[in-house]
């Protein structure tokens, strides 16, 4: 077993995992979006403590699933969406996945890779592909798919993932 930092430290959090799926915690979400706007500790590629920073930023509730080589932190957002962060046993966050009615704050979750993604996917010449965003580098892979109101995506650092990790786990 590994770290467990699965509950937020803020006072107004919901106390159970299964309730309050969509409509509550809105005020908390606003607070997080607007007040905690300094993503200096981005998770992807960051250290374990960044996960709690992300969770607070997203006003999410969190639980963990521990596998042999890594831990998955599952965050449930106020709007019902989920964000998963994949943490190596030594604390390095090597992957992120999301699903829900909106895209999460990728500037926060991707940190320095957000600019990498933007530079790679924002294209204005040639035929426009109205399709998922794909960024595939040796050290950074991102997919952002779905459609308005039903988004899904993931990003990970291939060179930092545990050997036993499969990208099909990034869901």
């Amino acid at each position, binding site marked *: 077993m590994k770290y467990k930092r699965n509950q937020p430290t803020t006072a107004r959090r919901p106390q159970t995992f299964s309730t309050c799926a969509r409509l509550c915690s809105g005020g908390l979400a606003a607070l997080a979006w607007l007040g905690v706007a300094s993503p200096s500790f981005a998770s992807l590629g960051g250290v374990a403590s960044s996960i709690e920073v992300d969770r607070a930023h997203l006003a999410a509730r969190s639980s963990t699933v521990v596998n042999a080589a890594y831990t998955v932190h599952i965050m449930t957002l106020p709007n019902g969406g989920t964000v998963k962060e994949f943490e190596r046993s030594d604390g390095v966050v090597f992957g992120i996945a999301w699903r829900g009615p909106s895209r999460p704050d990728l500037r926060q979750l991707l940190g320095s890779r957000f600019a990498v993604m933007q530079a790679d996917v924002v294209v204005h010449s040639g*035929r426009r592909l109205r*399709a*998922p965003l794909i960024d595939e580098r040796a050290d950074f892979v991102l*997919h952002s*798919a779905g459609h*308005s109101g039903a988004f899904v995506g993931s990003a990970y650092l291939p060179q930092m993932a545990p050997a036993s990790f499969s990208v099909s786990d990034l869901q």
Partner: protein
Amino acid sequence: MIKRSLGIKRLGAIGAMGLALVLTACGGGGGGSSNGGSTASTASTGSTTSTTPALTNFTTLTIDGGPTALTTNPNGYIDDNVAFVSVTICAPGSTTNCQTIDHVQVDTGSTGLRILASVITPSLLSALPTETDASSNPVGECFGYVDGYTFGSVRQADFQVGGESVANLPFQAIGDTGVFSTVPSTCSSGGGTNESTVLGLGANGIIGLGVMATDCDSLCTVAGGYGAAIYYDCPSTGCASIITRAASTTAPFQQLPNPVAAMAVDNNGTIISLPASPTAGEATMTGTIYFGIGTQTNNGLGSATVLTTTTSASPNGAGLITVDFNNAVLNESFLDSGSNLYVFADSSIPQCTQTNYTAYYCPTSPVTLSTTLVGANGTSVAASIVINNAYNFFDNNNTVVPGIGGPPTTFPSSNVYPQSFDLGLPFFYGRNVYTAIENKTAGSATGPYFAY
């Protein structure tokens, strides 16, 4: 206002059934089992002895290269597989301060009308009031698409499409100026392109006619809440605070409604009716979009198979169905006229290797896929889908390009999104695709559903 008889011809058989539905099935009765065998007249004018007013619940769909400002721009491009309508907006209460906006993309994958502020004449734009919030400040909106986002003011206009109209319809004036000229970081943080120009949007506007009745539903009615849409308080210092907006499809509006849901009649959904594409594609195509399902003699549900979708209460979002494909159950699939290709994973189909084409599939010869579409109601229908070589098919001036597909990833060993099959506009060719709005009775079924 565009009124063509073309559409009546395309849906002739259904039109005959539609008449039966109007007469017998207003309560949501038996639907498509009535005899549709008669080949309805394709006479283009109903000028005989009928006193019935001519139907106006439709308008023409055009697939072409896109707005002139796009195709003639040195940095521009040609749209492919994008269906456009023209809409007319007027200053509220005016019949003269109006403008018809061409090349508005029809999108069953989103909800709400969005028009580039830059294509609206200044004299009209200045006459379109901006919604205000509880602080009496202007309201701004961010809206997320798969490849980016739009941001702008929420203004109101008298709206017409075909013979349908909505007074004071809220729409997003994308890329509006003044306090809206700075995109909030909470809007751009989802990533992708800021689609604030004709080049960025590939259109003059986009009309979201998906299954949702408003663009954020209950998610934006709680403090700080957001979905694909985020609403902002926009004082003179700029847009920053997220605000709540009510989900109403009648005046007084707050959120952007589905423009069809806001219509006085024919407000339960749409039918996108496009002819089949020639095998090799073609330069342009015209079809018809009908407003309403089972509300007139030309928009009956007929024998179409109804596939209900996830609702706005789904944590994964509204409008999803299941596609069974390659022994996988892809339960985050959807029909999306706003996607200009099929997006699905099949590692047996080679991807293109040519520069700028690697996001597409390039089978050496056309590949026929067997899929089964399954609704939340358990109803299923088989669909055969042909995937062509994108590099070869794009190598001409066609804007109707059938059978174009691409993987959700170009990472050859992965299958990152096994749950999704995006049935984009090529799926609509040769079909009448129904999109019914959430909680609306539409023919013999209740939305949200897709049917064809």
